[in-house]
């Protein structure tokens, strides 16, 4: 019955509604932005009321937060982590460092634009973004999920060659398997 288009739409709406209220964030911090996560999670801002919770391992998580600057060394780990996550998965770029390098614009080992290496669904600007901004970012992500527009992982699979070429540009010695999933 759910093979026809009209029924699929209804199923999608229910599915997206369920997904947007259960965002499990991988407990993994890069750079300084991870310090804003504890106040977001604890009683004052209480992100759990939006369904945002921490997850211990990549395979259990839905959202990958890139909190701040990302060195090329960490990028390797982040790529492995992202590719191990199971669909549906979303990436949030957090802080100005992920957008254009921020204060590390002339650093020799931090990447300057995260969306060249991983598909980013939502960017949160600021240095640092306060917990209010973080919650706004999550609210925006929920909006996109409900509208079915948070399709970063689909984009990643379709344009894998482009992403891989960019990743290999900054990681000259590729010691990882070509596909991690």
């Amino acid at each position, binding site marked *: 019955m759910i093979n026809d288009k009209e029924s699929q739409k209804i199923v999608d709406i229910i599915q997206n509604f369920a997904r947007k209220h259960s965002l499990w964030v991988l407990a993994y911090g890069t750079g300084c932005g991870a310090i804003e996560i504890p106040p977001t999670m604890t009683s004052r801002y209480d992100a759990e009321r939006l369904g945002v919770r921490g997850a211990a391992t990549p395979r259990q998580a839905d959202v990958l937060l890139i909190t701040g600057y990302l060195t090329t060394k960490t990028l390797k780990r982040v790529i492995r982590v992202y590719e191990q996550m199971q669909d549906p998965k979303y990436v949030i770029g957090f802080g100005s460092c992920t957008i254009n390098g921020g204060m590390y*614009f002339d650093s020799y080992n931090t990447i300057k634009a995260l969306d060249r290496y991983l598909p980013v669904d939502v960017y949160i600007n600021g240095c640092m973004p306060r917990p209010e901004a973080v919650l706004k970012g999550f609210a925006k992500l929920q909006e996109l999920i409900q509208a079915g527009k948070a399709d970063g992982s689909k984009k990643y699979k379709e344009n894998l060659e482009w992403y891989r070429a960019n990743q290999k540009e900054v990681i000259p010695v590729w010691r990882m398997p070509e596909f991690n999933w």
Partner: protein
Amino acid sequence: MEELKKNIVNKITGHFADAAVKAYDGNRVDFTVKKETIPAILFYLKDEMGYNHLSHISCVDWIEEKEFELIFILWSYTDHIKVFVHTRIDRENPVMDNIDMIWRQANTYEREIKEMYGIHFEGLEAPEEFLLEDWQDMPPMRRDFDTEAYARKTFWDRREARADAQDVRETITKRTGEELPDVAKKYTR
């Protein structure tokens, strides 16, 4: 304190002919010595004077003088005095004696200096990489390494910031019609 410091200066300059006092204030004494004397002076300070804590090994790039300066920072728990031992080595051929047999933690500092400045410590037990992975350029903390040019070459060109973020104060005053205070005017671009 003063007597302790005088005692240190007398003992060191008496033992090592090339040791010269460089600075002498607070609870700190600085010596400059030749490169060859470093293991001997550190052994002496540790075993005879009780300076048994190596706080750090620091490195300075004196590019104009074509030299690297290495600074060994020692601390005594009984005297509460810091002793800095400075030495200069050639920049073109930077070779230094390894001292990790005196203090085990020196190994970490030396590996870092080796990667960041390219100074070769003779007989240093170290794997290939420490902090930098797959680094193929010149050591990045040297002053002739242009980080911005390297970043432009390696990474995607930097996006410009949003137009209204260029100067927040002016944008706000334009929007609200307020006069910018003189204090703020001094700092606007």
